[in-house]
């Protein structure tokens, strides 16, 4: 493993995130939860990896090899999250759904994703209504059978209502001539920018690979 390659990948991902229009504040805010976890990795992994000790903490030894592994994991994690942020999270979920469809992802999965996007908010509101109904009658969660049963009813009712709603949606779709196939109105067109992006990305990957293996 070459540190230069890892650093290059991280820098590339950071540049991509910047180009995607994320400001430094947003980027740091989104990386924060990941790095909280990474801090734990850096703290613990060197203790459990055998190797040259560099520090002794009571009965535990910090190994150099362990620290290297932990640092590599942290760098990789950050690079991956930055790249996903820049390339996937910046996209409208609907565009993502259509793109997945064109990439040959099974239709059922694409529809599942698109319906989730559409109905997440509806179900959340349904849940909030139910939760409010419980609250206005004086319910306060405690460690008690009553609490567990109430949550059980809440989740159960949400499932029943969702099922009902899905049946009404299928009915609405049938009314409009649905026969099991979705037709997409929009089609993507390959533009000069796409080609440019593809070439630049391929060149960058080649550079990272070259740094890693030579």
């Amino acid at each position: 493993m070459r540190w230069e390659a890892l650093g290059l990948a991280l820098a590339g991902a950071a540049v991509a995130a910047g180009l995607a229009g994320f400001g430094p504040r947003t980027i740091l805010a989104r990386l924060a939860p990941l790095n909280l976890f990474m801090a734990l990795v850096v703290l613990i992994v060197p203790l459990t990896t055998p190797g040259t000790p560099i520090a002794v903490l009571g009965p535990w030894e910090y190994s150099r090899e362990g620290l290297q592994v932990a640092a590599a994991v942290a760098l990789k994690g950050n690079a991956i999250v930055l790249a996903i942020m820049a390339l996937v999270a910046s996209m409208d979920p609907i565009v993502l759904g259509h793109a997945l469809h064109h990439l040959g992802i099974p239709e059922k999965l694409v529809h599942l994703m698109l319906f989730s996007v559409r109905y997440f908010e509806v179900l959340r509101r349904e849940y909030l209504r139910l939760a409010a109904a419980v609250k206005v009658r004086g319910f306060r969660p405690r460690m008690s059978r009553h609490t567990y049963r109430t949550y059980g009813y809440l989740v159960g009712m949400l499932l029943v209502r969702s099922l009902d709603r899905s049946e009404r949606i299928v009915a609405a779709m049938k009314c409009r001539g649905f026969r099991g196939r979705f037709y997409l109105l929009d089609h993507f067109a390959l533009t000069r920018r796409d080609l440019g992006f593809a070439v630049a990305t391929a060149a960058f990957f080649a550079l990272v690979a070259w740094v890693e293996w030579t």
Partner: protein
Amino acid sequence: MDVNEPLISMSSVSFAYEPSRPVLAGLDLELAPNERVGLVGPNGSGKSTILALLVGLLRPSAGQIRIFGKVRAAEADFREVRGRVGLLFQDSDDQLFCPTVAEDVAFGPLNLGMPRDRVRQIVAETLQSLGLEGYEDRMTYRLSGGEKRLVALATVLAMQPEVLLLDEPTAGLDEEATARVIEILARLPLAMLLISHQREILDRLTHRTCRLANGRLWPVLACGGGTPPA
């Protein structure tokens, strides 16, 4: 089809969700060309059930349904009906399931096998006719209640139906949105079957009203708003 024949006729139709509690029991209903009929009745009396039967979402346990001059009994019969009879659902969230307005309005015409260019044109025209220009790329779930109802109506009208079935088209809307929906419905040159609890809406939009009680329809005394076509 004979010009004088009703668009829709239900004769002696019965239906029950549970055998022990019949909802419709020997119901008769006729809708003439260009006629607008209001349906009233208590909650749970089966008004929405009538509309669901007419587009084949439910099947009657007895009786006959004729639409556009043909007896409709099997799923295949109703596929043709659904292209020509538009049903507006009570809850627009059930009806709008595509992410964007344009896709939702296009869904029906695309299912009918129309070419994409024609569909785009229909989407633009339908939205324009409802005063929804520029809504094409709006997310359906971020619309207000009134906007949702109008977009749902657009998805129905984009199929270019000959009959409209409206299940409480103004339920849950504020005064302004209600006025707008009524205004639009009054302008449409279509036969309608309309469920509503609001007297003034029925007066404004329908030629006659029927009350659903004990599983059958009973005429309600003439309520203004015009006379039935000859």
